[in-house]
């Protein structure tokens, strides 16, 4: 007996238990008695945690006032942060000159926007601006020269110093890391050994020991009289440290490329550096961007370690503030604020890197 369907079955809505708020809750919160208990317990915990936090940070917090006396201490006393905001942002950078830092931020933001967005077709000029012109501008803008008053690096501090540390280190670490990664894959045993030795040594030891080395030993290594200031020494340490990690990230990207790419480049007559620069590195770096961003997040968090060698970055300025005898007892506010600032930066970047990774993945499948 043959059965032939001539009409299409009408589309029916799914049963109520699968849709709507009730269906969603049934599936995601109360699917079994165990799940129901779990939901109740965690709702209780979450409610108390959120309530306690809001109570501390907003409901009972002090926002108005100018001194420690305005703190009622029922909740957070944000007056402290408000009063010190200038220092937290710029350290001891003279107040009259702080506009220079802001101009630097704006110029940098423009550069980053042009490089990351698709407003400009060719990425060449934005990249030249961001990686060559902008650093030079920043040097004169922040330090001084061309009629701008000199501001010694010992006066730099706060979030400004944190950003300087992170961006200068990544700026040095990326090219150095690329060279180390290429060296590690070189066919020359001596070159390979030097690179592997450097990378593995640095990755085995904690950043602090590298920073100690830069701050205590660098002066010993140089001829008498020649010396860098403290910030430069910290930058040397941070850059070398992140270069080793960057090298491993780039190596991962290089390894992910099929061998055929290099062979095709060679068979067209391109030399080693041409093949690397035109074919291999653009692709390897592109697939490593998410990992590069992650390394940068790590580096950004690690800048806080300069506190230990006596620089006044964001964390350090706040810590000093909490120990000021006029503002005692506000450590929680201070650290929660610093944590929030770092969190916003790092969480933002990590979301960006996840988004990029997904985009790259779908791009490949195409």
């Amino acid at each position, binding site marked *: 007996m043959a059965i032939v369907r001539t009409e299409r079955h009408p589309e029916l809505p799914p049963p109520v238990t699968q849709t709507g708020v009730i269906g969603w809750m049934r599936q995601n919160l109360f699917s079994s008695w165990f799940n129901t208990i779990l939901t109740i317990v*965690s709702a209780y915990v979450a409610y108390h945690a959120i309530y306690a936090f809001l109570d501390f940070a907003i409901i009972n917090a002090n926002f108005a006032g100018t001194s420690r006396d305005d703190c009622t201490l029922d909740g957070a006393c944000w007056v402290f942060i408000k009063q010190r905001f200038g220092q937290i942002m710029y350290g001891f950078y003279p107040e009259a000159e702080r506009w220079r830092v802001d101009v630097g931020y704006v110029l940098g933001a423009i550069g980053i926007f042009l490089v990351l967005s698709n407003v400009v077709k060719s990425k060449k000029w934005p990249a030249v601006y961001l990686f060559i012109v902008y650093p030079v501008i920043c040097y004169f803008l922040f330090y001084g020269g061309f009629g701008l008053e000199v501001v010694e690096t010992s006066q730099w501090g706060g979030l400004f110093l944190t950003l300087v540390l992170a961006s200068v280190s990544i700026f040095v670490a990326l090219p150095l890391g690329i060279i180390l990664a290429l060296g590690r894959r070189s066919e020359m045993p001596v070159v390979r050994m030097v690179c592997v030795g450097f990378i593995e040594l640095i990755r085995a030891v904690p950043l602090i020991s590298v920073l100690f080395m830069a701050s*205590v030993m660098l002066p010993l290594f140089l001829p008498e009289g020649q010396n860098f200031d403290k910030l430069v020494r910290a930058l040397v340490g941070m850059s070398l440290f992140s270069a080793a990690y960057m090298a491993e990230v780039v190596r991962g990207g290089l390894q992910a490329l099929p061998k055929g790419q290099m062979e095709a480049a060679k068979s067209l007559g391109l030399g080693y550096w041409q093949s690397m620069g035109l074919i291999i590195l653009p692709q390897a770096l592109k697939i490593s961007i998410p990992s590069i961003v992650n390394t940068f997040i790590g580096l950004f968090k690690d800048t806080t370690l300069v506190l230990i060698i006596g620089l006044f970055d964001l964390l350090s300025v706040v810590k000093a503030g909490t120990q000021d005898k006029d503002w005692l007892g506000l450590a*929680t506010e201070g650290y929660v604020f610093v944590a929030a600032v770092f969190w916003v930066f790092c969480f933002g970047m990590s979301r960006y890197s996840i988004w990029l990774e997904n985009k790259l993945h779908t791009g490949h499948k195409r």
Partner: protein
Amino acid sequence: MTADVPGMSEGAKVSPFRDPKVRALFFQILVIVTFLAFVYYIADNTITNLEKRGIASGFDFLSQNSGFDIGIVLFVDYNAQTSTHGDVLLIGIINTLAVSLSGIVLATIIGFVFGVLRLSNNWLVNKIASVYIEVVRNIPLLVQLLFWYLAVLLELPNVRESAKIGESIALNNRGLYFPSIVPEAGFWLIPVAFAVGIIATIFVSRWAHKRQDETGQPFPVISTGFGLILGLPIVAALVMGLPFGFEYPAMGRFNISGGWVVKPEFMALFLGLSIYTGGFIAEIVRSGINAVSHGQTEAANSLGIKPNITMRLIIIPQALRVIIPPLTSQYLNLTKNSSLATAIGYSEIVAIFAGTSLNQTGQAIEIIALTMLFYLTISLIISVFMNWYNSRIALVER
């Protein structure tokens, strides 16, 4: 088949400048020479600088008296008047290992718990776990450590207003106090019983494997193991007539004496490291379990294997393969991060040896070299383990 071709013999001689092998050799010699020149330059400057500053060199300082006090000393005797910088190094190493190992244990527990919660079907549980992970991973460890130390632990009530559990456990801004165990005659049997329990468990698990292979009968290895490892020491204690007593912390007005105390420096570092690293481990666990495809679960279900056995025999072994390599590198990170103790005054190797000893002797090179050597050794041990593990996995996969 040969045809005479013009220029056949001409190419045989290669100008040395155009031979890549010669070039490579030349370049490598250049690298070595530059490297040696660099080392010589540095060494020369350093020697001159050290002489000018009147700083000694060599490792004699290790046997010189240190002359400073150390906050936390475990397992060894230390006395500022008689002990040496060598002792300081030893204590630094012990303290580093102590906080790292205990941190690793707690971080692993936290990581696995939150990693599994992060995979829960329960929306609320899932969200709570992901908030934990995202908060903890995106705040610098040093900020967290300072928070725990300066904003939480040091802000606890003072000795007089200690928070107490019963009369013998107290928590205040000097630490967590609890009774110590004082061994009496016959105490030795308890650790021995513990060791015997572990060894016996290993044998039982081998025997059980073999028996299951041969007869198909499973054996409850895990509960038997627990029984042996915990039960034997208890039996030993009972047999020897409970050969220990307790010393209770005596609460004075401003001070507490006797008993055991966990200092806030240790606690802050221990908590901070575990909570921070736990967030990273949770992510590793989550992606490890996710990496074992749903297909595997479905295949197991379709074979009629029960869910908990599927988890134990199919999902977990495969997920562990993905999890263990990044997990060990987190352990290494935790150990390296314990050096942040410098900022909160816990006496580990960087704080007391690369800090105080260095300030006193000025022998930066030797001290930093020894410190780095210590970390290098640890990471070498971990990478030897990783190689062993990877080769074992490779064998299994064949």
